[in-house]
């Protein structure tokens, strides 16, 4: 077989190959760097590539004596990490010029866990600056292209993480989701993206955009890989006050096969409005019909405050962001505007030059909603509406186990199409935001194509019910058997 086919393997297949000594981690890692060299000029999914470190790590893993039965869960698996997650010794620019020379002096908790589990880190992926955006056009280092259509955006803010997996430059990656930044790019690139329950994965080492919303999540080609990666990165962390003191997710939490058809599916009316691209709502209706035919209990539910989610999200997220981004002042790390200035000049020139336009806009907006005289009018109101959005979900999960919705109202759009009007861009996250506000988990699954553009299906569950969520997603993935995206439209590996 062609060694390049290695790129299509699942985690279990890699591990099988390693156990049988069919391939080595170095061989697999090299294959991905070959692919990166081949496509990066075009896709630009990565901001930093650590070939030397990765190859060294692969060799070290090979030299370690590991018994056949005691394989670490991600032994020898290459992974790409979003550039807002700290990997010791690698840059962490968050897609911002203000952090262009920042090298993380410590590992994020998730990275510690990944390293312990045996991964090989390929590099850091492109993103909208400080995760603020839905297209990766806001990166301070140039946009990432959608591997399925190079004229279109890969989504954002984890656009690099989604694109590299879809382009087979990495078998899996980590992204972060504040209002949809894992699920929306996963949908745009036709892969799987999970936003865990808020507090299920440690945020320590994830550079904050909006602390009460940010969550790290896996981007993978299959639900099964997502399950394995999620098992590794989840669990409590004494270094993160917002991380829930519960045990990590385990695949044992997934219901047995015979339990799956009993899962009650809710369809929220508010997610099927005329504003949704008919190709998307139509395809999701087909999936729902299929489930009804399969005997699933499917009910209609209402989440009446959905329509207010977007506004309250932007108020809350930007307020937090305006404060979270205050630390980029040129004193201790990152970019400092050089020259003989006063302290005040150093601050303003460093910050005004260091941040991109969208970030500047959001800082001003966030500052506004916290400022005296406007706190009650904006920030407080945003937090109150958040309560209503949360309660909507709580009520709906009294009657059903999972909710099925589109991930986005639109298909992947062209570059520049939405970047002129910030509000139009914000609308791309309208269906992923409410669940983020409620802190509940959601997964984005490819459920079909409109021409060559993928359509994302979102499944939401009650907090900490990722077992049901992933079990159902895996079932649906098998049921739908949607071909994985592949830029060269090469046949899937089964037929090789």
């Amino acid at each position, binding site marked *: 077989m062609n060694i390049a086919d290695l790129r299509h393997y699942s985690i279990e297949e890699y591990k099988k190959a390693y156990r049988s000594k069919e391939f080595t981690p170095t061989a697999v890692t090299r294959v991905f760097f070959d692919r990166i060299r081949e496509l990066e000029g075009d896709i630009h999914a990565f901001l930093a590539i650590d070939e030397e470190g990765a190859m060294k790590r692969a060799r070290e893993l090979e030299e370690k004596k590991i018994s056949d039965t005691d394989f670490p869960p991600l032994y020898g698996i290459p992974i790409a990490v979003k550039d807002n997650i700290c990997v010791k010794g690698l840059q962490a620019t968050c897609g911002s010029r203000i952090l262009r020379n920042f090298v993380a002096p410590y590992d994020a908790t998730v990275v510690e866990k990944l390293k312990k589990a045996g991964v090989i880190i390929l590099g850091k992926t492109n993103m909208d600056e400080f995760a603020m955006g839905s297209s990766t056009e806001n990166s301070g280092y140039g946009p990432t292209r959608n591997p399925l259509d190079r004229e279109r955006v890969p989504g954002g803010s984890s656009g690099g993480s989604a694109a590299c997996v879809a382009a087979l430059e990495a078998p899996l990656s980590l992204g972060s989701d504040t209002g949809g930044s894992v699920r929306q790019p996963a949908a745009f690139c036709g892969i799987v993206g999970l936003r865990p329950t808020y507090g299920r994965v440690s945020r320590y080492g994830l550079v904050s955009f909006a602390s009460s919303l940010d969550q790290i999540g896996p981007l993978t080609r299959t639900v099964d890989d997502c399950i394995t990666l999620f098992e590794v990165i989840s669990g409590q962390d004494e270094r993160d006050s917002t991380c829930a003191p519960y045990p990590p997710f385990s695949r044992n939490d997934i219901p047995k096969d015979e339990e799956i058809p009993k899962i009650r599916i809710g369809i929220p009316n508010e997610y099927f409005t005329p504003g949704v691209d008919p190709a998307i709502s139509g395809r999701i209706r087909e999936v729902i019909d299929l489930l009804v035919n399969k005997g699933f209990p499917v009910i209609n539910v209402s989440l009446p405050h959905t329509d207010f989610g977007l506004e309250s999200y932007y108020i809350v997220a930007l307020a937090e962001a305006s404060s979270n981004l205050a630390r980029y002042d040129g004193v201790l790390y990152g970019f400092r505007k050089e020259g003989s200035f006063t302290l005040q000049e150093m601050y303003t020139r460093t910050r005004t030059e260091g941040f991109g336009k969208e970030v500047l806009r959001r800082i001003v907006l966030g500052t506004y909603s*916290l400022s005296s005289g406007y706190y009650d009018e904006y920030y407080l109101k945003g937090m109150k509406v958040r309560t209503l959005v949360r309660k909507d979900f709580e009520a709906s999960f009294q009657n059903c186990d999972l909710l099925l919705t589109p991930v986005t109202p639109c298909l992947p759009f062209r570059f520049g199409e939405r970047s002129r009007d910030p509000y139009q861009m914000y609308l791309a996250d309208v269906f992923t935001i409410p669940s983020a506000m409620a802190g509940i988990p959601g997964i984005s699954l490819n459920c079909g194509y409109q021409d060559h553009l993928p359509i994302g299906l979102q499944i939401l569950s009650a907090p900490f019910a990722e077992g049901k969520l992933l079990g159902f997603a895996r079932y649906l993935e098998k049921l739908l058997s949607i071909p994985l995206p592949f830029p060269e439209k090469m046949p899937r590996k089964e037929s090789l």
Partner: protein
Amino acid sequence: MEKCYLTIGLEVHCQLLTKAKMFCRCGTDYIGKEPNSLVCPVCMGLPGSLPVMNRKAMELAIRTAMTLHCEILPRVIFHRKNYFYPDLPKGYQISQFDFPIGINGTLEFMGQGEKKKVRIKRVHVEEDAGKLVHEGLNIPSECSGVDFNRCGIPLVEIVTEPDLHSPEDARDYLTMLRSIVRYIGVSDGNMEEGSLRCDANISLSLTEKTMGVKVEVKNMNSFRSVYHALEFELSRQQKCLAEGKKLFPETRHWDETRGVTVSSRGKEEAQDYRYFPDPDLLPHTIEQVILNDIQSNLPELPLEKKERFMFDYELTETEANVLVQDCSLANFFESCIKELNKPKFIANWVITEVLKNLNDLRQDIQHSKITPAALMDLLKMVDRKEISGTIAKSVLEDMFQSGAKAKDVIAKKGISFMSNEKELEKIVHQIIEQNPQSIADYLSGKEKALHFLIGQVMKVTRGQASPEIVKNILNKELSAERSLCGPREPF
């Protein structure tokens, strides 16, 4: 001029005595450390780092609030206070806002002999900032250096209602507050080292019912400077009012060397701290067991202790006041009493001699070389009249300096246990009998003869007797002789 009504409110910050910082695990022992050696991603605000509350800091803050009779709020909620300053690496300080640890407390203190009560508005916790240096070995003159060793040390802020009415009151309140934070072990309350800091709000009004214009005074680094700054501010404002000038709200800095307060120009017209709940720190529910535990371990406070000392040990108010001001001194005193149940006698020694020595050495009792047992070894000798008070004083001084035991100092000083006066008396009698001529000389006015006699006693005791005691005994004996010989001519 007309009568003025003065109102003062104080905001006191105390560094809490934790081993680790407020939101990270760095150590707090920063004094004298190399700059930026007690730092980590959290207290330097590195991207991606997150704060986690030190539960000991929370407990110490609750202990402070409870001692001040505050209502303890059921949850610990932190807010961010947003402003830019190079000693603040995150661009905000983690503090508390509308939900502090404790509210509505009181503190009683002795103000010029009178028991007074101040209402405590709030007690809250927050993190300390780093330190700026403006001149260092190699730091260019147009630059400042930042050291984050102090950054993130837990502080408790204690805010009074405007219940103080004179600079003396303010000083006395502060003295009592310091005494209390030391008593309950939450802070070492050292103003000179900056572990206790005080800002004052002062307002002067012509009528009793209305409040004057609020002026904030900062940068007072000692108890003395709080008193002097407030006195200065009082007379400055009085003068303004007398001249019919208008006072306006402002922040003024105390300039210690010039002895004046200086207006900080234009208190940032645009300052707006944009407090909001810190989304990185989940609210922490205070469990009842923790409250009960802290409550049951609250120590006796200075005023209670004073009253007990007056009652149990029959000390005067002044004596008791001196002893209870420093908890360790009070404990020292009580340990001494266990060795010898003569409180009055011991109190007298502690108040005069022990404090004098501590003062001379600029030490406090905890860091001195004297233990209660060591002091009592000495005082028991005094009590048994084995040595005189005068000797004991000089022995004590030596003990404070060297840390030696009383017995060893006495031996070293050549004051053997023969300074036991009874034994010495015998020897003195013997010498008197053997030297009738010298006695006659002395009685006829020759002072030198006395020195000869002392010398003789010293010879017999091989230098082990205390010349002073010998002299005393000789004087006593000789004056007895003199009275036998009848009145003597003056010389």
